[in-house]
């Protein structure tokens, strides 16, 4: 289980680098639709989702995992706040972790703040079910 998780993380990370997502500037060039727009990330998400759509169905059933389905204020507010941070820094969680290999100050500061931000979300006024 440990080895397969490591292997999946390794392959996931190689995909992030090959696709360009590990480069925050390229991510921001995608989100910056009024600037010098780079549509590459549409193909990253398209390629990834094409694969998961093709294979997830039976695997999800076999896994017996259960998922929240509620579309509520927490979901929308959380996603909105995440997007604000993503557009400011150019890192979402996966690319931020694999970008640690750059040994750059911005990657370390971002990851430390991201871990702290996740723990803040557990403080009672923000804490809720399913997150």
């Amino acid at each position, binding site marked *: 289980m440990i080895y397969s998780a490591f292997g999946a993380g390794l392959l996931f990370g190689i995909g992030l680098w090959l696709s360009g997502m590990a480069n925050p500037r390229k991510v921001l060039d995608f989100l910056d639709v009024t600037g010098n727009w780079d549509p590459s990330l549409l193909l990253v998400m398209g390629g990834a989702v094409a694969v998961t759509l093709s294979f997830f169905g039976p695997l999800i059933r076999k896994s017996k995992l259960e998922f929240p389905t509620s579309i509520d204020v927490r979901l929308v507010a*959380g996603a909105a706040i995440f997007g604000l941070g993503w557009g400011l820094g150019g890192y979402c969680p996966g690319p931020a972790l694999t970008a640690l290999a750059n040994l750059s100050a911005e990657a370390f500061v971002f990851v430390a703040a991201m871990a702290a931000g996740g723990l803040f979300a557990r403080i009672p006024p923000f804490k809720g079910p399913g997150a």
Partner: protein
Amino acid sequence: MENFTPVASLAGGVLIGLASVWLLAANHRIAGVSTILHGMFTQAAADRGWRAAFVAGLVCAGFLWISFSSPNPGREGFGLGWAALAGLLVGFGTRMGGGCTSGHGVCGLGRRSLRSLVAVCVFMATGMISVFLARHVLGIPS
């Protein structure tokens, strides 16, 4: 559009999708990076090993990739205060919303979840607003 890299981006996306299928098939887990990372700090000890292994794989992929190319040294003029604020927002928002680009995006859309589709539309939209404000209004060199 001169930076458009369709072949590498599509191929990289396919690898990301395959890695997600792999984790689901072998470990019966969703490859949602924010949830995996957060659980390293909050889940019971027995549930931390695979999470740490996945994160270690992600980081090792970076070192492996860089050994064949060169590291990205970080952005000139992009202050660490902005990096810290961005990290806080990403960490907080992904936990409140229950997922990120991988959990809601790659995996949630892959299992046809309406909840995830809503999340993806929202964070894409606020991401576009945020980069507009950061780059074109505040003039942050990102």
